[in-house]
């Protein structure tokens, strides 16, 4: 047994449950869940979603809480040592690297999103969005993401806000669990629920014709909750539901194990896990479904909102909601804007603090770092890793981090940990860990679900992501092969869908869509070409290309018909694929670096064992 100097503990049980709930509740509860529901059968989405929660979510919560408490008894608080304490074969501690890596990589872009919410609270309160039209509000977000543009007069505003947000996270983490994380959870979780209830009431009670609304709020609820039962036979819906359970519960990350490792050895984990898990479901299902969709459909109508959900929840939240709040008058819009982005901020910070804890615990346990130094190193690493997502946001670096660290890593790690727990650590010991000290009777059926159903469900989810077919048409599957979806794991590895600009560097840039050049314009020393045409589904779609007239020679003229692959401009070009590959190199480097640290840590452990 290796006792570490890291003897932090939770101050209270309520604080622990709120911190765990805060870890789970994030941006996805309000921005991703309703969009997923709209895109996957409305009310019928909830059926596979709840099934996934019961057979995958709850079992993984039990696995992670009990593994954490088990390993915490011997002073192990981070995923590599938690997994190592369950099975001494060398491979597990390196599998555990996922449990530090994904937290660091996700925090790098998550803290950036968190900084947007701080900025949007300020802008809502000072009335920046007053008198802006919908297009201007949408452009405001694009301007904010462009680091060279300032929306407040502060130069490099996006970076300044990111650094401030990181400093806040670092400070709270440096205060420890009881005085930092737990205090924030006790304030933040009730506040975000309060803000959520206020906005949900506003959304549900929205009346058509009030302040320009064209629909009652109930029209949005009707749209969201009307079940399309035929969607239940579509594997896409089931995989989307399972994916949402991962995102929403923060399972497969290593943060739950880390928090649970600080639970006292005789304390319940079964009831705590259920309480935190269901609290997350309350925020997601009850509040998350009653805010952006009812309000957006109230003002914009169903067709427009369906179109907007194609660009995802983030776009809907940041490009559209401030404009909709403006319809409520200057005072109420300031209150609603501050409540909405404040809610997102608290949802974000309670999650990002959980992402910081595994890395800090690792440094404290294995290298005897002080909490302050470990927290500071977390802040610096996140800053360095986060800057590429800020500078190269439009080149896809942000999305690349999200795909590999925030999606694929979670599934891989959850799959390994469920196999380790159920089949190697063993269900006999595992069940004893889950039920030891339990304040509720855990249904015996979970012993079998954890052993058989959960690993199989995770294998299906992983394989589904690996070979996802084009257009999510699972009838394409055949022994002769099928066309892969651009976002399947294999498709991503092959840069499928990258288009004609598929080399790192080039002397020419080619158009990536068919259509007609419908505008050429310059704003703030930047020049743009807009090509509008029909997409694969026949709907009109525009794509805007930025170029630098000082470096590039434009090869198209206004009104010209274009097909994909036509030369748009000549001159030195660094293509998007270069940034994507560099992001991958960076992520792999971080993973290998943590592997090296784990190797050194275990060499140190061996030396100390021999010295004893």
């Amino acid at each position: 047994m290796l006792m570490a100097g890291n003897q932090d503990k939770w101050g209270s049980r309520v604080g622990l449950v709120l911190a765990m709930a805060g870890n789970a509740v994030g941006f996805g509860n309000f921005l991703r869940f309703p969009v997923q529901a709209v895109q996957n059968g409305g009310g019928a989405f909830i059926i596979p979603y709840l099934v996934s929660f019961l057979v995958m979510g709850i079992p993984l919560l039990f696995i992670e809480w009990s593994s954490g408490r088990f390993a915490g008894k011997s002073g192990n608080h981070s995923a590599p040592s938690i997994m190592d304490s369950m099975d001494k074969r060398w491979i597990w501690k390196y599998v555990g690297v996922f449990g530090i890596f994904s937290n660091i990589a996700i925090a790098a872009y998550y803290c950036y999103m968190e900084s947007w919410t701080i900025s949007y609270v300020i802008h809502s309160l000072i009335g920046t969005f007053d008198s802006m039209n919908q297009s201007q509000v949408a452009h405001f977000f694009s301007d904010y993401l462009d680091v060279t543009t300032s929306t407040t007069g502060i130069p490099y505003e996006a970076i300044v806000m990111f650094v401030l947000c990181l400093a806040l996270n670092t400070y709270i983490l440096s205060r420890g669990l009881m005085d930092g994380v737990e205090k924030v959870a006790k304030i933040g979780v009730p506040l975000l629920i309060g803000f959520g209830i206020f906005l949900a009431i506003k959304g549900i009670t929205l009346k058509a014709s009030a302040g320009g609304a064209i629909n009652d709020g109930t029209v949005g609820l009707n749209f969201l909750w009307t079940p399309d039962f035929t969607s239940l036979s579509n594997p896409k819906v089931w995989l989307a539901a399972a994916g949402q359970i991962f995102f929403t519960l923060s399972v497969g990350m290593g943060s739950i194990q880390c928090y649970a490792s600080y639970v006292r050895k005789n304390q319940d984990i079964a009831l705590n896990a259920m309480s935190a898990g269901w609290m997350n479901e309350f925020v997601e299902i009850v509040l998350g479904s009653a805010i952006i969709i009812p309000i957006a459909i109230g003002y914009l109508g169903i067709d427009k909102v369906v179109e907007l959900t194609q660009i995802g929840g983030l776009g809907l939240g940041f490009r559209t909601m401030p404009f909709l709040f403006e319809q409520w008058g200057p005072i109420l819009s300031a209150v609603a804007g501050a409540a909405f982005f404040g809610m997102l901020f608290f949802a974000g910070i309670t999650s990002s603090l959980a992402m910081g804890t595994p890395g800090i615990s690792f440094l404290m346990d294995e290298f005897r770092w002080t909490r302050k130094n470990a927290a500071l190193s977390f802040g610096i690493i996140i800053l360095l890793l986060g800057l590429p997502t800020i500078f190269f946001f439009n080149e896809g670096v942000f999305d690349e981090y999200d795909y590999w660290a925030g999606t694929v890593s979670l599934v891989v790690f959850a799959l390994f940990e469920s196999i380790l727990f159920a089949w190697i650590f063993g269900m006999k010991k595992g069940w004893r860990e889950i039920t030891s000290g339990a304040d509720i009777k855990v249904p015996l059926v979970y012993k079998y679900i954890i052993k058989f159903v959960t690993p199989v469900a995770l294998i299906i989810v992983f394989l589904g992501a690996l070979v996802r077919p084009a257009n999510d048409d699972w009838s394409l599957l055949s022994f002769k092969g099928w066309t892969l979806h651009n976002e399947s794991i294999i498709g991503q590895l092959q840069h499928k869908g990258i288009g004609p600009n598929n080399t790192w560097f080039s002397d020419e840039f080619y158009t990536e869509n068919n259509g007609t050049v419908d505008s050429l314009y310059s704003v703030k020393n930047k020049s743009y070409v807009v090509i509008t045409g029909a997409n694969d589904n026949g709907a009109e779609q525009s794509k805007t290309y930025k170029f630098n007239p000082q470096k590039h020679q434009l090869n198209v003229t206004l009104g010209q018909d274009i097909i994909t692959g036509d030369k748009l401009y000549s001159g030195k070009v660094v293509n998007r694929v270069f940034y994507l590959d560099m992001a991958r190199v960076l992520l792999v480097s971080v993973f290998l670096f943590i592997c090296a640290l784990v190797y050194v840590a275990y060499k140190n452990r061996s030396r100390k064992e021999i010295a004893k």
Partner: protein
Amino acid sequence: MNTTALIMMVSVEVTVILLTGYFFYKVLTSRPKSGDEDD
């Protein structure tokens, strides 16, 4: 709202609210174990 949507929404939300309330109430009211200086 149409009846199916209303039934779907009310049944799911009431279930979630009751379970959330029940588990959190249990957390608040369960007695600390001996040797556990929590709460």
